[in-house]
């Protein structure tokens, strides 16, 4: 493992088997990026005071009326999130229907949080009544329109819905998501079981946030408060992963693999000769793992090549760097070894895919495919120690303890299935090899 620490103390660790067999050129590496509290609290090279902007979008469509108590819970959750705002954070509350409307401040422009503005916002939220339809693309467009006043800020949105995106086409939503990429990050929450996991995941994934189900409205307030606390802990906006590869190389994929699987390959922005940048969103004191696969031109046995240089960049500042080296050998005992962490995360990515494909097949009534995919998912979850996914899988399939064979449950609670789907990308970590 090679390790490098930038001036700011962000560490970038590379874990891989550098040895390649003669004539081969595929290099797999797990790149672990860790920012400590000292770093996240005071990243050098960044403005001492980076603006924070928070937008909370609360679904005010008619369906929020039932069951009784759902909309009240959503309002309480919004108030709880407001309560977590650090003073000085610019914030705005948006009512989402087939259009987006400012709830607080009335003019829609984010205002700095203070005891007075937070109380006023909570009162405004309390007066909301459900009344319209659902067009999430317009909600994203609204956020995009108001954050232009805060270039370079940490901009985060929370989007709460209870239903499908009914009042615009999937293409319209897709276009709005595309336009919002890189403008702000967004965490999505679905309350109840009438919303679409795929739809919210499309938003949260593109906007580098998370998606989850809150099946019981009573749990919303705690969840919103936790989400806002996490957002308040971020200190570096628009962090990017810069990847240099040698001439003639092809980047096969770049995936975040922990804490969740997120394929970043298509997010590449060319930023120079042999250099591409991948957005990582905003960072606090946290660590994330990435799986990078690069095909390089093979070199002669005994030669060494740099297969990739991985830099973590904020603004113009390189915060940390790691080198992915490749050495060609005639010794197959060396080249055949697979890094334990590469193997583990390859399995975790396959697990997420097996769960999603299995659930999708199940919805379409393809029992055979669903059983096969979910069987594979159970095996992978158990083998890799992904207890969270293993437990969620048991809500959807029955596992014969003796043979390990899997059968689809006849009765599956919608909330269990959606939780499995929404959380399918969460990965188990493995200890770093030392």
């Amino acid at each position: 493992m090679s390790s490098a620490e930038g001036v700011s103390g962000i560490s970038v660790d590379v874990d891989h088997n550098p040895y390649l067999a003669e004539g081969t050129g595929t290099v797999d590496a797990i790149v672990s990026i860790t920012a400590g509290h000292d770093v996240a609290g005071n990243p050098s090279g960044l403005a001492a005071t980076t603006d924070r902007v928070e937008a909370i979008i609360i679904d005010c469509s008619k369906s929020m009326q039932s069951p009784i108590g759902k909309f009240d819970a959503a309002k309480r959750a919004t108030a709880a999130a407001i309560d977590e705002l650090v003073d000085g954070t610019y914030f705005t509350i948006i009512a989402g229907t087939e259009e987006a409307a400012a709830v607080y401040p009335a003019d829609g422009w984010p205002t700095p949080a203070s005891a007075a503005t937070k109380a006023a916002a909570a009162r405004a939220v309390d007066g909301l009544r459900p009344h319209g339809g659902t067009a999430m693309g317009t909600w994203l467009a609204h956020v995009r329109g108001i954050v232009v006043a805060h270039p370079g800020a940490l901009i985060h949105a929370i989007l709460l819905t209870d239903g499908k995106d009914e009042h615009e086409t999937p293409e319209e939503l897709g276009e709005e998501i595309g336009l919002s990429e890189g403008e702000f990050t967004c965490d999505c929450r679905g309350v109840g079981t009438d919303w679409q996991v795929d739809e919210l995941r499309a938003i949260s994934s593109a906007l580098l946030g998370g998606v989850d189900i809150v099946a019981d409205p009573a749990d919303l307030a705690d969840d919103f408060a936790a989400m806002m606390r996490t957002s308040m802990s971020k200190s570096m906006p628009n962090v990017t992963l810069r990847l240099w590869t040698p001439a003639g190389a092809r980047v096969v994929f770049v995936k975040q693999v922990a804490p969740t699987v997120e394929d970043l390959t298509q997010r590449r922005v060319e930023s120079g000769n042999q250099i591409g940048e991948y957005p990582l969103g905003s960072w606090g004191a946290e660590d994330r793992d990435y799986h990078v696969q690069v095909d390089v031109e093979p070199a002669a046995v005994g030669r060494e090549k740099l297969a990739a240089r991985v830099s973590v960049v904020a603004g113009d500042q390189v915060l940390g760097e790691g080198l992915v080296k490749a050495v060609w050998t005639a010794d197959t005992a060396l080249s055949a070894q697979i890094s334990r962490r590469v193997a583990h995360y390859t399995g975790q990515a396959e697990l997420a895919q097996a769960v999603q494909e299995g659930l999708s097949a199940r919805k379409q009534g393809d029992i055979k495919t669903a059983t096969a995919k979910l069987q594979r998912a159970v095996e992978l979850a158990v083998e890799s120690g992904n207890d969270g996914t293993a437990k969620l899988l048991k809500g959807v399939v029955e596992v014969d303890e003796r043979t390990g064979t899997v059968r689809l449950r006849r009765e599956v609670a919608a909330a269990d299935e959606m939780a499995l789907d929404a959380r399918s990308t969460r990965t188990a970590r493995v200890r770093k090899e030392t």
Partner: protein
Amino acid sequence: MTAEDSTCPQCAADIARADRFCGSCGATLSEIRRVAVPRPGRYVDGPCADCGNDAHVDEYCTVCGHRRAEPDRDQAEVGGIVLITDRGLEHARNEDAAAAGTVAGNVPEPDSIAVAVCDGVSSSRDAHMAAVAASNAGVDAMLAALAASRNARSAILAGLADAANAAAATTNASTSPSCTYTAAVVVPTSAGAVQITVGNVGDSRAYWFPEPPAPPQQLTVDDSLAQELITAGASADSDAVQRGAHTLTRWLGADSEVKPWSDSNVHTITPAGRGWLLLCSDGLWNYLPDAADIARLCAGLDTAAAASVLVEYALDAGGQDNITVAIVPIGDFHEFG
């Protein structure tokens, strides 16, 4: 103070000519000098050998990513001792290493000398790490032992012990590098002659070349399958011996025996006159096994020229392996007869 006495360089107390330590402050009164090859972190200047690009970052070409080449050869001298190590022609990198040093006493007696040559075992990953670690640790231990006491045999044994530990310490979870180790210690005797003690694990060799017409001789016995067969009575030309020529029976590294040497690996001679010592890896003696042939090749040359002639000979003969030679002139010796 008489001309034969002096002062301690540390505390300026008066010291007698025979003192090894200052009686006042305890400082070692020997000056130690040492060198080692190949020196780390040396790279060939100029554009990338693979793509012609001019820029390197962290020693990697900024276009094609190839690691900048290290020089094929490194050479060092200390107290008249010449070390050369060369990658050869066939191996991708140099897994040999050598180190040498001298201990000067506080009296005008000849320096004591310690030399070690190691050959990384190619079948182990990162074998060069074992060779570098063992040669450095061995020479350091021998020099420290010589600074304390001019006892050649105990210095050789101290070097073997530290070299074995150092080679074993290069092991990690994924690899267990190993290497050969051949060392020589030269100490002046009270009678004005020298005592030479050699010790080896593996098949790197030491040869002694007295001034002609005395015959040159190989001082070490290889720890190889071929040598075991020859010792058991097989002909040196037999197929079995030829096949086993490079199969080591002992080596240094984590996967070796704890103490892979015995008394029979340590030999001492007390030559009457001047001469020179050669330590070398099998990259040389594969092509020049016979001491008489080596002596003929070096006739009329000084130490540096002789070392480089030997390396060139091995390269001309095919350079199949890494080549390392250490030449130690003994007793005011300047030119090969």
